[in-house]
């Protein structure tokens, strides 16, 4: 009897989420300026030359793509959703035909759209810096998709489980933990012993490893890294489906 399909409600919600995201000034800063600035910084200065070798741009690119996926799909998504819960916007949506799964799907799609735009800006900047993609670069898009889905699942799980203020604190804290312990900026090999062996099991470490293979080594990403990301996605989706509440 309903003339609006679930698919079109998801699409409508995704457009709405993207519209609100791209209007927010802070969000634009996080989505475009910081990743591009970070790429320029890591590539043009000798800050990381010990770790990144002579041609710094490929490693800087892999790093920045990873950081921007985590920032958009995990931290920003969790915080924005947490505050929507606090303002009661989600409670009201809970009374419309939009189901919980459709809301989560819409949010994940919008985040994916934003990640695509921000990654495009980063990739174009890398090309301007002299980076030339090899055939292995075709792995970049599927890896970004998988990474975005995995981090979005956990961002939504976090936003659904805690109060808005707690989400803000925890999302920022975990962002730092994921970046540092995942060997995203400093390669995992240079982390102290136990941390070095932990890194590949973190979603950040797995994504960094996979993107490094595709961008720096020009090789297919290791199957273990993809499996680790897939496992984080599966568990995160199950947790967010269970913990996510409208109010």
């Amino acid at each position: 009897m309903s003339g609006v399909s679930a698919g079109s409600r998801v699409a409508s919600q995704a457009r709405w989420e993207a519209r609100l995201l791209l209007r927010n000034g802070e969000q634009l800063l996080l989505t475009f300026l910081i990743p591009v600035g970070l790429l320029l910084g890591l590539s043009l200065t000798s800050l990381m030359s010990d770790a990144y070798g002579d041609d710094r741009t490929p490693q800087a690119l892999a790093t920045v793509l990873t950081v921007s996926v985590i920032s958009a799909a995990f931290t920003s998504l969790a915080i924005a959703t947490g505050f929507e819960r606090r303002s009661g916007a989600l409670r009201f949506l809970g009374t419309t035909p939009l189901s919980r799964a459709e809301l989560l799907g819409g949010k994940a799609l919008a985040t994916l759209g934003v990640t695509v735009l921000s990654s495009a800006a980063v990739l174009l900047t890398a090309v301007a810096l002299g980076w030339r993609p090899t055939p292995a670069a075709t792995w970049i898009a599927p890896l970004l998709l998988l990474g975005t889905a995995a981090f979005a699942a956990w961002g939504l799980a976090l936003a659904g489980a805690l109060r808005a203020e707690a989400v803000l604190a925890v999302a920022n804290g975990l962002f730092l933990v994921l970046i540092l312990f995942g060997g995203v900026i400093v390669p995992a090999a240079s982390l102290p012993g136990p941390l070095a062996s932990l890194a590949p099991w973190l979603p950040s470490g797995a994504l960094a490893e996979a993107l490094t293979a595709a961008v720096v080594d020009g090789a297919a990403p290791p199957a273990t890294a993809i499996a680790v990301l897939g496992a984080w996605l599966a568990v995160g989706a199950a947790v967010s489906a269970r913990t996510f509440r409208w109010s």
Partner: protein
Amino acid sequence: MPAPAVRVRDLVVRYGSRSAVAGLTFEAQAGEVTALVGPNGAGKTSTVETCVGLRSAASGSVEILGIRQPAEGGVAGALRSNVGVMLQDGGLYPTARPLELARHIASLYADPDDPERLLAALGVDPGTRTTIRRLSGGEQQRVKCALALVGRPRLVFLDEPTAGLDTSGRRAVHDLIAGLRAGGTSVVLTTHLMDDVERLADHVVVISRGRDVSRGSVADLVGDDDTIAFSGPVNADLRDLVAVLPDGCRIEEDRPGRYRVSAAADPMILSAIAAWCAQHGVRTSGLTVGRRSLEDVVLELTEGQE
């Protein structure tokens, strides 16, 4: 007779060990406007939130448009497109503009109303570039009302739709509700303004401490009898007056210094009261004859509640 739009039986809603709703029973008939009234904390909002699936019932049952709500909360999917809700707390995206939000919500329904027309009818400028966060409380209230109605629901719950509205805003909401009723929509509203109830409600449910204490039309609740009331000194000695009134006629001090006579507005009784006032030096300026106000009736029914 069609099934009631809402049927609530022995509903109990708990927050921890406290029962906000403690055995509430009422029905809202299809096509009618039903008003839930009662003091703050009586359980009106908890009842509405349970009806729309945002809260779970500890016990009792809730049937919406003939469909039983799941006990664990949540709304049956088919109901979501047929039930509109205006929540008391929140419900708006602070950074959105009214029209874009109303359009988005409309896009989730199969046969929505025109968002622009609806906002304009409620006195919100559809072309405004102001974000919702910067609108006044009353303007936000009007936007929430528009969102509740934009999906053309068969049944709409409005939790204090006129709270914080100025006269023209209340008038706009009244007109809109009257229009919904004329179009066959069932309306359940909560309010503290008896003016809303008297103008709009076909059926009134008076709630106190989480229970229904009375129900009926406004006329049922107020009663047909005229009554006489007058003002005098607090705790006045009324024995002289009672002595000249017909047998069985009593005088009660409704509130300090305000007396109500349990008798029809008979001229003989009025003259007896006037004579008593003259003897005791009481001005008759507070003397009123007529129906009791709905407010008095509701106050009396819910008396004793914090």
